[in-house]
């Protein structure tokens, strides 16, 4: 276990050492005859130790595929598709064998999935499932690992950990299962936690609990979190930085305050505007983004958002804009960005 992974650190201090995770030009092109689906199209971002990066996008934007790719969790035949680099603590994950990758997963990098109801093995006790990575990666005895599993359950706020450890997943509620999932993911105190829509399937009161828990666990363990969600409100409450994806690309990336205060990409702006909020005197109509996400065949040569964009210019349709810094830490891929 690396020292870095165990000690809670100040995120800013860690950033000085260079990023924990650097994703460079990640591309997943899937041939779906007669087209090629550019599901992930040159995605690059970095994540510092102890930091939470929110990766936000609507369905089909490629955010989940990005997460699965950097975990190397794609199944054949998709497993052969990705290109690019995923450098975690100096190691390019894309070059590791499945066995090498197995040694890393659950130890240095873990993942929490969207569906707590199906992500736990139904025929194994919760305790065993939490203990398993500890036995495997930390070399603990089964007994030790089981005890540690109960500790983990207590840590993720499960009231009766000893009982729950012996229970099977189907006896737990959705919220409890998601806590157990988090316990599994954090059992070996990984440096990076990838959380893919961890609260989407949960009720709003439980969602709030889980988000609080993630924040608390981050303080406790110091893991960096890649939080993938379609819900900008969740991002606003949880992330330090945000990357917005649209049609396989990151269109804007910024610290969370900066993005919400002054979104520069028209898509981000439209997205933010269309979120319904609880207001005393709401507008009679919600602002909407016209049109819909283009299908693989309809994706234009230039900026994928151009057909829906009110600020589109001729060159938008011709050539895709690069993701360029517009302000410190704030990058956007737009030929005609909104004002800061």
């Amino acid at each position, binding site marked *: 276990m690396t020292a870095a992974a165990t000690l809670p650190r100040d995120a800013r201090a860690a950033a000085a050492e260079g990023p924990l995770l650097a994703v460079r030009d990640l591309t997943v092109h899937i041939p779906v005859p007669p087209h090629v689906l550019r599901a992930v199209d040159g995605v690059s971002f970095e994540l510092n130790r102890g930091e939470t990066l929110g990766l936000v996008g609507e369905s089909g934007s490629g955010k989940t595929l990005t997460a699965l790719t950097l*975990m190397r*969790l794609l*199944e*054949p035949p998709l497993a052969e598709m990705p290109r690019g680099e995923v450098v975690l603590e100096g190691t390019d994950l894309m070059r590791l064998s*499945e*066995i090498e990758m*197995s*040694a*890393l*997963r*659950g*130890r240095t990098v*873990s*993942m929490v*999935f969207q*569906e707590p109801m*199906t*992500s*736990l*093995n*139904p*025929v*194994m006790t919760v305790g065993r*499932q939490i203990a*398993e*990575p500890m036995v*495997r*990666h930390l070399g603990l005895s089964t007994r030790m690992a089981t005890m540690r599993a109960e500790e983990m359950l207590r840590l993720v706020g499960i009231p009766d950990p000893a009982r729950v450890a012996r229970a*099977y997943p*189907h*006896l737990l509620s959705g919220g409890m299962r998601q806590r157990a*999932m988090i316990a*599994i*993911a954090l*059992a070996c105190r990984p440096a990076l936690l990838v959380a893919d829509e961890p609260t989407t399937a949960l009720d709003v009161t439980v969602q709030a609990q889980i988000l609080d828990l993630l924040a608390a666990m981050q303080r406790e363990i110091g893991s960096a979190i890649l939080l993938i969600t379609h819900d900008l409100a969740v991002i606003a409450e949880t992330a330090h930085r945000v990357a917005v994806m649209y049609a396989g690309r990151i269109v804007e990336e910024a610290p969370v305050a900066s993005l919400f205060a002054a979104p520069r990409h028209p898509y981000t702006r439209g997205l933010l505007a269309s979120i319904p909020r609880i207001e005393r005197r709401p507008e009679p109509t919600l602002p909407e983004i016209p049109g819909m996400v283009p299908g693989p065949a309809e994706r234009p040569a230039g900026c994928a958002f151009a057909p829906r964009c009110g600020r589109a210019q001729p060159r938008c349709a011709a050539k895709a804009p690069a993701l360029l810094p517009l302000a410190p830490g704030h990058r956007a891929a737009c030929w005609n960005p909104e004002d800061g």
Partner: protein
Amino acid sequence: MIGFVARRLLQAIPLLIGVSLIGFGLMHLAPGGPLAVYTLNPTIQAQDIERIRIIFGLDQPIHVQYVKWATGIFSGNWGYTFFGGRPVLDVILERLPATLLLMGSALSVAILLGLSIGVLGAVKRYSVFDVLATTGALFALSFPTFWFGLMAIFVFAIELRWLPSGGMWELGEEGNILSLLQHLVLPTLVLALVITATWSRYSRSAFLEVMHQDYMRTARAKGVPPRARLLRHAFPNAAKPLIALLGVEVPFLFSGALVTETIFGWPGMGRLFVDALGMKEYPVLMGMMMFTAIFVILGNLLADIAIAAIDPRVRLR
């Protein structure tokens, strides 16, 4: 658990009544009957046939015959054979061990082989092995069992003389395990062939199904290596539908055993059935139908209990 078994056994009663009614009806409404065998005897005359019909009780209305038979069953009397007057239960029970042995050995071979082939096929999906196994399984499923059996006898027993062509023991060697094993090889392989093919296909799809489940991805995401994922995570889950299949497989096995036993002269229930059907031995046929029905019901019950043992979500209700 006890409540579950009790309820299932209670539920079995109408099922058995249904089986007996359908079986009885089919048999007795069918043209022909046990008396036809007597017709082959040159000295028999119409008046003899009439007399025997009355002795066998076949002159009574069918519902009376059914009620008589059913009351017998309730008091543990499975009736007597028309030809020989032996208790039906004895006649069936003396054949049962041979059938169970053949079915058991064929099933064991088939499960082991089928499971291995299926799992390997699922793991190495679309590999050369997978394609060969899938094709081979379909090929095996396309063979009429009897044809394969005759070929096996022709090659191994007649031409090569490696193995005996039929029967269960060398005469005078009853009780000699080696002799039994020699006699068991060909019928087992023939009967196992089709089951192996079925099992390889089912286990392949069961494993494929399980391997695409979210929890398998979770296992992968926490660093469980492939072999352990297969054995510890996939296997118990994939075993469930396969065990259910095992329960459903019982009647199919009986069917297969019937043909195999006929070809190899295996002294089991299959041949008893064919003989009894030929002679219209109603009491034996009825007894065997009830027997297999009970086996099917027990098979399914055991499968359900086994599934509940594996899967904590399944409660025996």
